[in-house]
């Protein structure tokens, strides 16, 4: 006799209630990065100079700014998912593991927001 309730059997999600989100997010961000990363390396290669002023000017263009924000957020997201798995695999001991996982999330969030703010500043002017 199964101890699972009829409701639990119908929902069919097991004891963890989830499990496929991480896998799917990793794949979808990977697919997005094929486009965004490809666009970035090609666009950067096409620039003639790499001085602060030229890059600031390039990033102020609405399309470039949009792509750069998408790139920054998606990179941080994909990186966060990857680093999470590496920590789960190699960092042992519950306290150290949880601490590293939380620190990694904090760091990735910080990097994503800094990237967005930097591109917004270049795009919208000196207000930010």
């Amino acid at each position: 006799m199964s101890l699972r309730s009829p409701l639990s059997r119908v929902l069919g999600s097991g004891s963890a209630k989830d499990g496929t989100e991480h896998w799917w997010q990793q794949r979808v961000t990977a697919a997005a990065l094929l486009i965004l990363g490809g666009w970035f390396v090609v666009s950067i290669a096409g620039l003639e100079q790499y001085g602060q002023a030229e890059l600031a000017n390039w990033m102020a263009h609405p399309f470039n700014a949009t792509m750069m924000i998408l790139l920054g957020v998606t990179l941080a997201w994909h990186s966060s998912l990857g680093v999470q798995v590496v920590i789960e695999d190699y960092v042992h001991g519950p306290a150290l593991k949880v601490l590293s996982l939380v620190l990694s999330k904090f760091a990735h969030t910080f990097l994503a927001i800094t990237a967005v703010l930097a591109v917004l500043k270049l795009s919208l002017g000196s207000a930010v």
Partner: protein
Amino acid sequence: MSTEGRPLSPHLTIYRWPITMTLSILHRMTGIAMSVGLVLFVAWLAAIAWPAVPYEGLDRFFDSGPGRLLLLGWCFSFFFHLANGIRHLLWDTGRLLEKSQAATSSWFVIVSAVLMTAVYWLSV
């Protein structure tokens, strides 16, 4: 119950090293390398956006020997992770999962990653 002196099952050192293992490890290493690179990427954006972050210093560092070596490493990491990432996405659709196909695609990934890195490095 003592666990000492018990025989171990054949482990990593016993098996002949397959190329797929190298690719698996490289995928993880290049991923970690780019996670570290992400910090520099965001610092680069910040330096372009805010005068308080000195762009000149960053520019000078990446123009130096060690800086260029790091950039070359990230360049290879990007193209390797990209090529092997596509291999992973193909696997997810149930294709190319036979042992011999996995070995062939390994070499395909290595060659294309090296080629893309070389072409990109020489063209920029």
